């Protein structure tokens, strides 16, 4: 059974055609680095989000690979051009079958 968590997207709901919009994407995840130890001295296994993909009306416009050096509750802020009205979909996937999705509508005039 895959696990999931809360995510949040911040981006404008409307934009002028051709303008650059800023998108903030954050996921609730401990991002266990794999470098920490329990009190008893055992290594806590790595458990992180590995990939983040943003598609705009099904076309991939942005992707990021995360490594253990990304902080807990990972945030990424990036830009994209408001080309047309539609839906942006966001997908996070990671270790131990982690998967989370979110979406946002944009009206482009």
């Amino acid at each position: 059974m895959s696990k999931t968590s809360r995510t949040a997207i911040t981006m404008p709901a409307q934009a002028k055609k051709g303008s650059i919009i800023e998108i903030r994407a954050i996921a609730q995840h401990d991002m266990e680095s794999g470098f920490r130890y329990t009190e008893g001295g055992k290594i806590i296994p790595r458990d992180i989000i590995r990939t983040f993909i943003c598609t705009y009306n099904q076309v991939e416009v942005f992707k990021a690979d995360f490594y253990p050096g990304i902080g807990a509750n990972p945030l990424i802020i990036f830009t994209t051009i408001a080309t047309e009205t539609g839906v942006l979909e966001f997908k996070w996937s990671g270790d131990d079958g982690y998967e989370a999705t979110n979406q946002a509508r944009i009206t482009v005039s």
Partner: protein
Amino acid sequence: MKKPLSFHFFSFVCLLLIAYQAVEVCAAPGSSKKQSSYELMTAENKAMQDDSTLNPAMFWVGDGETLWNAKPSSNKSSCASCHQDGKKTMRGVAAQFPKVVNGKLQTLEGQINQCREGRQDLPKLAYESKDLLALTTYIAIQSKGMPIAVKESPANREALQTGKKWFYERMGQLNLSCAQCHEERAGLKLGGSLIPEGHPNAYPIYRLEWQTLGSVQRRLRNCMSGVRAQQFEYGSPEMAQLELFLMWRARGMPLEAPGVRP
């Protein structure tokens, strides 16, 4: 030889200035301006607290709202069953805790557990558990920006005095009291970090050191381990008394919950 009038005038003015300074120094603590440890943070960390699109603690607010409205099972009530919309009914509540409820000194976490056991017929939530932190954060954010309203009263006087004793008493292998760092040396440095006044005006906080959200009791236990003292247990009367004193000491300061701290 008689002294000139200007001499008398000058010395009178000097005496006035000295008297004014003396009054300033002797002003009762609590009435002078209190400083939140927010002021000691970098611009990036301040922004993380202020902007809800950047503050990781907002996830706990969302989780708390879900828990507030969820019915644990078909025959049990949710928080909302009695308290309706938390955004309205919980406004100002967190700024009043700890307080004496039905003769017992309760912290906010203690009160939540009292409701769970006493009203919902559910088991208590463990301190620092995801669910208890979520509910505490959801309730605390409803008082965001409101002044801390813990006052001395006949009901809490004794507990407040005991809490004050904990604050001023030396403890641990390092034999230090809270006051020695956070009152006498606030603003000075300990190992490169500025010593804050130690007001609990932003709890629950997302602490970068913990890489997660935690309660004021967790932070107090850190302080106590810092001076190598036997830590107060979560939910203990000593913890509630100390928390009561600290919130009274911070009275009037706006609640910043949920805060971000390094």
